[in-house]
């Protein structure tokens, strides 16, 4: 009996010992499941080469659950030490509730341009609460082999775009446009936020929505929805039940010619597609001189106020600001463009293509993110539903525009 008790005591105490043995353990919370390999095999080992005593664990939640589950975890005190930050208002809420630490005193913040820091600063700019990491761009990917086979050239304007789609449709062997409406977020982000900046003139239109000078019922938003509605003619039959992974597979299996998407896709596609693919920028309206690219400040990383390893976490965050991290990240996760001011060599050809558009076009960020994204009902959620319904044909572009405007006017004074 005594032997039994002592064994029990030893095993119980060893459980506690085991838990305390990893005092320098950092857990990163992220929604980027696709990047787990890059973190585990390249980024974390590179960090450990310098700081071998700090153990870093990269832990992911599926994207659609991320904001909600992170909110619950932070409230319940079970979240990891480092929190991957969604840009603008979503993370600002976390900071305002005291769940994220201010990072003003962190070294290395000079390595970022102001526009990158804006995404994770308070409205008056007095506090920065997430270290900027990367941005993503929107555009269209296309299957080079199909384009060569059908003798297609890269479309620049809206009418060229639909003419190209018509040719692919007439050929009949390939789905012209790989996108569905079952995952409403994917449809909205790859449609509305992709070609949208060309309709609302980039930053100018984005700011006009914030000030209330423009409304979502204005003609160019109706035009945008009308243009998106035309996409439905070129999607696969039964696109209403096609999910985001379905569309990804449709394109990587070589069954579709054009895939409206963003640069974050480069990483997984270069592993899965066995054909050559490249990208072209969002089409412009006919007769439009300028062009606009959505270059969204997408990922930052912040420090959980309840973390018990803040010293280690700050060492890690400072390392994230270094040129070493930027270079590894840019090449391990091509398609995510580090926001650092360090000059970095990107080797991936498709990623280079995306970057090259920024020379000729003005950049902007998603128009639903900043300031107008903080009310109820959430503007992003409304845009998701509206874009999908318009493409499904259950809502007209005019009704969609009116619904978006009404939801914003519900709580946002400049639109009332």
């Amino acid at each position: 009996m005594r032997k039994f008790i002592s064994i029990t005591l030893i095993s119980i105490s060893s459980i506690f010992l085991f838990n305390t043995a990893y005092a320098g353990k950092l857990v990163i919370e992220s929604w980027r499941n696709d990047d787990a390999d890059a973190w585990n095999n390249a980024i974390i080992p590179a960090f450990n080469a310098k700081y071998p005593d700090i153990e870093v664990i990269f832990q992911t939640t599926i994207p659609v659950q991320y904001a909600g589950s992170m909110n619950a975890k932070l409230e319940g005190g079970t979240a990891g030490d480092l929190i991957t930050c969604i840009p603008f208002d979503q993370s600002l809420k976390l900071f305002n509730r005291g769940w994220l630490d201010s990072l003003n005193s962190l070294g290395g913040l000079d390595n970022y341009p102001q526009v990158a820091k804006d995404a994770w600063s308070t409205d008056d700019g007095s506090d920065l609460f997430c270290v900027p990491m990367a941005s993503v761009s929107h555009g269209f990917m296309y299957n080079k082999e199909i384009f060569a086979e059908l003798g297609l050239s890269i479309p620049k304007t809206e009418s060229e775009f639909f003419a190209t789609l018509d040719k692919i449709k007439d050929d009949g062997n390939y789905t012209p446009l790989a996108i569905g409406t079952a995952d409403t977020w994917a449809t909205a982000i790859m449609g509305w936020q992709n070609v949208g900046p060309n309709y609302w003139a980039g930053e100018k239109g984005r700011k006009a929505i914030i000030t209330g000078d423009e409304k979502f019922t204005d003609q160019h938003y109706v035009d945008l929805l009308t243009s998106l509605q035309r996409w439905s003619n070129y999607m696969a039959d039964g696109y209403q039940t096609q999910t985001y992974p379905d569309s990804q597979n449709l394109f990587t299996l070589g069954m579709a010619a054009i895939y409206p998407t963003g640069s974050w896709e480069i990483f997984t596609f270069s592993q899965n597609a066995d054909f050559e693919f490249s990208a072209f920028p969002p089409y412009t309206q006919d007769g439009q001189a300028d062009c606009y690219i959505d270059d969204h400040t997408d990922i930052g990383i912040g420090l959980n106020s309840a973390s018990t390893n803040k010293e280690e976490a700050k060492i890690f965050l400072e390392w994230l600001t270094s040129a070493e991290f930027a270079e590894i990240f840019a090449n391990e996760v091509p398609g995510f463009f580090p926001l650092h001011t360090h000059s970095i060599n990107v080797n991936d050809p498709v990623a280079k293509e995306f970057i090259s558009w920024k020379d000729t076009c003005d950049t902007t960020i998603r128009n639903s993110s900043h300031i107008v994204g903080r009310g109820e009902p959430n503007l992003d959620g409304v845009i998701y539903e509206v874009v999908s319904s318009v493409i499904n044909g259950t809502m007209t572009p005019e009704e969609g525009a009116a619904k978006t405007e009404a939801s914003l006017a519900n709580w946002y004074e400049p639109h009332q």
Partner: protein
Amino acid sequence: MKKKFPYHIIVFLFPACFIYTIFMIFPLFDTLRISFYTQDLMGSNLDNTTGVRTFTGINNYRILFFDELWSYHFWNALKNNTYFFILHVSIQTPIGLLIAAFLSSKELKFKGTYRTLIFLPAMMSIVIVGYIFNLILSNLWGIPQTLLGAVGLENLYQPWLGLKETALITISLISIWQFVGIPMMLFYAALLNIPDEVLEASKIDGSNGITTFWYIKLPLIMPTVGLMVILTYVGNFNAFDLIFAIRGLYAGPEFSTDLMGTFFYRTFFGFQHQLGNPTMGATVASATFGIILIGVLLYLFAFQKRITRYQY
């Protein structure tokens, strides 16, 4: 001699009562309590006092039932859920009864095999069922197109899970398919309980298979049918997982497959950009509880009290 107080009964009852109180009764009443409070979610001040809840009486219920932003989703979910329940009762129960009647017939061979096969889906994880049906009905990799095409009816194919008009029916049918084994088992057990003497007597009186079923077997298993309806009712109004697995929490297209369960989950835990709202979530949960309570009480007083029970 004065009889000793039976302390052992208290000792034996204690564990069950304790666990039930801690994990069922307390959370239930605490949910009702939280539904009378409100909490600032936007975090407008920096001193982290925003977790504090303020008492607002029945204001949350007023918002849920009458405020346009919330009431649309509430009534929509209630309507869909009622439809979901009606489809289950009017399709699953008769089919379960029919299969049970076949299985209980003496002439049928391979009973055990049929029973196992029909009950098998009920034991599968809903996530797997949802995933499989998403693939089966997919517009790209699905099989209805091929099957319908084989008999020249490929034009009949629709993306059923993606259309506002058909998505809820499709999901209901998937759920019915998966769980038809449970009413079947209950009815089967009840049918086996009917004594042979009663059936033999009816045979002697000239009753055939169909009349025996309608006039002898069905009235005798009516209490089980009632039980099945109320179990389906409670199960359906708590349903959440299949919708979540197939359509996600926006219960698309355009919330046409939104049930009380998905509405509650979205409200309480949040989804995508919608942040969780514990107090409104508790209100939705309490409303669901109320709906289930009303249904169960109706069943108790309108049905169970009146039903004739036969002793064999």
